[in-house]
């Protein structure tokens, strides 16, 4: 069993501040973390490996400092780490990112072992697009199982996998074939801790570093800025519409009256809403 997990190093959004005057994101000094969904993916992958045997390879595309994220993944027990780093990758949008990662995953198959499962997170907390996972699946022609909350079972001899996929209002139980690509939700609640031995092993093991050529990429124009049709036009912090919260005195009223008053007061502020709702009701 060979599992590839794509992880991205992202700024810890809990600690990001927007400059009050210039409205730009203040990244300076903000610590980086592994994208939380990718950690859940990694945990799921490690569990599958612990149960069925095999290896977990973690892959990231990013600047040299992304090595830190890979070492963390090694601390948790990943067997191999690959850093895709090349100035040609700079400025990649989701299209270019998916292209580069899928090429690298093919190369991983050639160099080590064909992956049975590729994991990505559901989405990142900085880019937030949720496009990279499906983008990889399409390029590698893998079955894609998105929004997975749990892997219920894997039958290696039958090459079958059953997962729970969360969707609005319920859960899909999906059975599919291997190989496949899974985009992971916050599945497990517990991410394992590394032991001291793991931390030492991680710090002392070698990280495989590939540039574009080593990742098997021939068409450089599909990478980085050149391969990215998306441009960010503007980044801004929306101006918050300040409104004072209204306090309702509830001491001497029935719940029903309070609710009626509340609805009435909303309609006073939003007459259009009342109109829409009542016409919807009569239709």
């Amino acid at each position, binding site marked *: 069993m060979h599992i590839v997990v794509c992880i991205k190093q992202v700024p810890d959004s809990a600690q990001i501040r927007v400059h009050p005057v210039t409205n730009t994101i203040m990244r300076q000094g903000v610590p980086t973390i592994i994208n939380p969904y990718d950690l859940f993916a990694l945990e799921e992958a490690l569990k599958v490996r612990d149960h069925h045997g095999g290896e977990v390879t973690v892959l990231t595309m990013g600047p040299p400092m992304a*090595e*830190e994220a890979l*070492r963390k993944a090694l*601390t948790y027990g990943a067997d191999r780490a690959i850093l895709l780093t090349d100035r040609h990758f700079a400025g990649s949008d989701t299209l270019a990112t998916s292209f580069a990662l899928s090429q690298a995953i093919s190369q991983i198959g050639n160099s080590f072992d064909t992956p049975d499962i590729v994991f990505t997170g559901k989405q990142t907390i900085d880019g937030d697009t949720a496009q990279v996972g499906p983008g990889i699946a399409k390029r590698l022609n893998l079955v894609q199982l998105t929004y997975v909350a749990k892997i219920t079972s894997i039958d290696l001899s039958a090459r079958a996998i059953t997962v729970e996929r969360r969707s609005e209002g319920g859960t899909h139980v999906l059975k599919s074939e291997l190989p496949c690509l899974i985009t992971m939700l916050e599945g497990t609640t517990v991410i394992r801790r590394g032991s001291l031995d793991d931390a*030492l092993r991680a710090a002392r093991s070698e990280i495989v570093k590939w540039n574009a050529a080593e990742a098997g990429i021939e068409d450089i124009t599909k990478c980085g800025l050149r391969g990215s049709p998306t441009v960010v036009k503007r980044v801004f912090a929306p101006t918050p519409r300040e409104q004072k919260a209204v306090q309702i005195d509830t001491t001497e009223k029935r719940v029903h009256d309070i609710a009626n008053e509340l609805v009435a007061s909303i309609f006073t502020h939003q007459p259009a809403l009342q109109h829409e709702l009542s016409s919807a009701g009569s239709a």
Partner: protein
Amino acid sequence: MYKAPVDEIAFTLKHVAGMGDALQSGALGDLGEDLVDAILSEAGRFATEEVAPLGDIGDRQGSRLVGGKVQTPDGWRDLYHSWIGGGWNGLTAPEAYGGQNLPHMLHVAAMEMWNAGSMAFALGPTLTMGAIEALEKHGSDALKATYLPKMVSGEWTGTMNLTEPHAGSDLGVLKTRAERRDDGTYRIFGQKIFITWGEHDFTDNIVHLVLARLPDAPAGTKGISLFLVPKFLVKADGSLGERNDLFCHSLEHKLGIHGSPTCTMIYGDGKFGAEKGAVGYLIGEENRGLACMFTMMNNARLAVGMQGVAIADAATQKAIAFAKERTQGKAPGWTGQGMSPIIEHPDVARTLLTMKALTQGSRAISYACAHAVDMAHAAEGEKAKYWQERSSLLTPIAKSFSTDAGVDVASMGIQVHGGMGFIEETGAARYLRDARIAPIYEGTNGIQAIDLVTRKLPLSDGAHVRGFIGELREIASAVRASNRNGFGETAARLDAALDDLSAATEWLIAAVAASKLAEALAGATAYQRLFGLALTGVYLAKGGLAEVSDAKEDQRIALCRFTAENLLAETAALKDRVVNGADSLAVARAVLA
């Protein structure tokens, strides 16, 4: 609930205590910043996620003696096994016995976090590590081969048996007997009290290190030998054999650290085995036992200092969280609706900032001490001597200032909580109860002060301490020269505190040299605190000067300035007590008659 402040700890290690330089110079071998961060973050997660949630139950249930066996609190046995499973017990232990031989700085940082989770729990491993150190330095190869691998892995724990009913601070009068046997082993007879983790259900075997006296030994401290006395004898193949003739007679009922069993141990009572007497194996040479103990004493004292830092931090975190939630009255300038959170009141804010300053100051002193230990280990010749002296000088300060801070800060924490602080379920009271032992054991803080004044100040004829104060003055100058905003009067206040330190130091060196011991010792504790406070000011300034853009720079400088302008004025009073207090003390003794 306590959350390990991994970033703050890493910052202090690297930018205040000297780890950054040590890493760069290669003094720490192949250790890199990545590894430091990884280890701290995993050790911190263990403290936050595993230890801290079980701290409370340990306090409430305590360890109990049931049918001669010690039952530890619910969940603690599993906790211990998950902790050793993580390999943490072997952090600094020698590689030859399965340890990782990592620097002491990492060890104290990790100890801080585990102790903050539960001091009663972390105390057990602290003693095992002390026993490992003593055995490794002085034990025979055979003893080491039999015992060390299992003690390093944590499969067996270790204890320290020094204290007897009439022999506490003065071990010279201890009575436990050791008799020679023809096969080279010894038999031990006697009673030891207050033995931490002397009996428990974590592991199958417990390795006791016991101080005892041979029949023909000279009186006093020069007649004490050190023995390894296992609970179960170990067979040639390493498996456990007969039960040795020793047992835990009773557990103490204590103010705090309830989870940690404090045992009265009876040796050679004839309860187990064919022949009366507990089988013991000599460690080091006969009559040199106290010297063997002293080689590990420095690290053990520093480890206890970490308990003070740990409790101070945990208590501070709790108090700040509470003060943000609790609303009461209207603070001056409060414009919000209703009552203000109590953190807005100047008095509460001052208390909380004092707690933070004492926590960070004692942390920095302790880490700097660990740094000196590491450097002494890595260096050679004159450099080694310099670092050796630095760690010797800092050890009593780290132990006493930090453990006093633990108590003071925990008490302030209760005050911030108001009436709820006095109520057990809040958890603030536990910190004070737990913290209170640390100034007492491992050499009382009073004994530390004596050590500082009579043994440490005279190192290199006073040159070491003078050189150190000189180094501290450079940091004060750097603050003066700094063009960063926010330091306020820091430079002047640091200069004044260092002047006080310098004057008190010179007075004491002269008094000790002139054998005016009563005068010198009268102010020893005041001097110890003066040193700790001055170091707190200087180390917080060093942190404030550090060029690290992590969005915390302004906060560091603000806390540094608060410390300088609110806390450092105390150094003048302390100096006065040192140089002018002895006469009135001598006269006033009559009051106590």
